[in-house]
């Protein structure tokens, strides 16, 4: 699965996710990627989220929307909300994987509860930061 989330200079958020699913999945099985509110979510008032992992669990916990709801109704930060969902909700239910998220304030959160996630981000400083496992980001200009 691949995905992207962004905040532009006008303050607008967007999210996109695309996937081939899981190897040897049952034909017709649909995971969380195309399910709005599960693997993909964007709302200028809170955040944009794209998920990757055990899709059935992401759907059952409405992962993307849940992160936004924690921000909207509980006043939590993006980082608190994303980590709560990935570590405290999805992981105990068997939902291994992770999310990438950007907040309306420009914050970034990329939590995962498995061994790694191919990931990266870039800001206005134009430094490309990429990582795979739990190692420091590589910076490329």
């Amino acid at each position, binding site marked *: *699965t*691949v*995905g*992207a*989330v*962004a*905040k532009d*200079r*006008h303050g*607008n*958020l*967007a*999210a*996109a*996710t*695309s*996937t*081939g*699913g*899981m*190897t*040897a999945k*049952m*034909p*017709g099985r*649909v*995971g*969380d*990627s*195309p399910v*709005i509110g599960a*693997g*993909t979510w*964007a*709302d200028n008032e809170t955040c*944009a989220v794209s998920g*990757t*992992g*055990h899709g059935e669990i992401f759907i059952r916990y409405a992962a993307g929307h849940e992160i936004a709801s924690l921000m909207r109704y509980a006043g939590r930060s993006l980082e608190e909300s994303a980590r709560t969902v990935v570590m405290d909700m999805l992981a105990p239910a068997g939902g*291994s*994987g992770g999310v*990438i998220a*950007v907040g309306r304030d*420009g914050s*970034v959160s990329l939590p*995962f509860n*498995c*061994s*790694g*996630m*191919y*990931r*990266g981000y*870039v*800001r*206005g400083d134009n430094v*490309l930061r*990429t990582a*795979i496992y739990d190692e420091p980001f590589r910076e*490329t200009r």
Partner: protein
Amino acid sequence: DFVLAIHGGAGTILRSKMTPEREAAYHAGLQRALEAGRAVLAEGGAALDAVTAAVMALENEPLFNAGRGAVYTSAGKQEMDAAVMDGRDRAAGAVAGVCGPRNPILAARAVMEKSDHVFLIGESALAFCRAQGLDFAEPDYFFTQQRWDALQETLAMRKSGADDQDESRKHG
């Protein structure tokens, strides 16, 4: 200022199988996707266009499980899913179970922008994409030996009852 984040999936290959060459290739693939989206945002472009550009770049990389690098179903076919959402007004579009559009994310975006619907699947989604003039690719464009071998290994393990510990085969 702007910010863009991407992922290439949580199905990372086992550390024991990661080589310096593979690691460099994954980082390079991620960097190309970041650069595609960054170029849009740096010019003052829309977040929607940036995430579309970044995901297209990832779909074009056989390394990642989407588009050109999509994995196989148990029937030896490829079924791709994609979605896009605009935070300005919660406009959204998605497709599922498609194989043919070169970039499934453009199919999702077409659903969002060119239809009254949010989610189209299967043959009807493909017909819609054709009607919208989206670029289609031949089946061999989507073939990767690595994904085909992964399918055979997974099917063999299922048959033998062995547990598959490789997250690159268990995750999307």
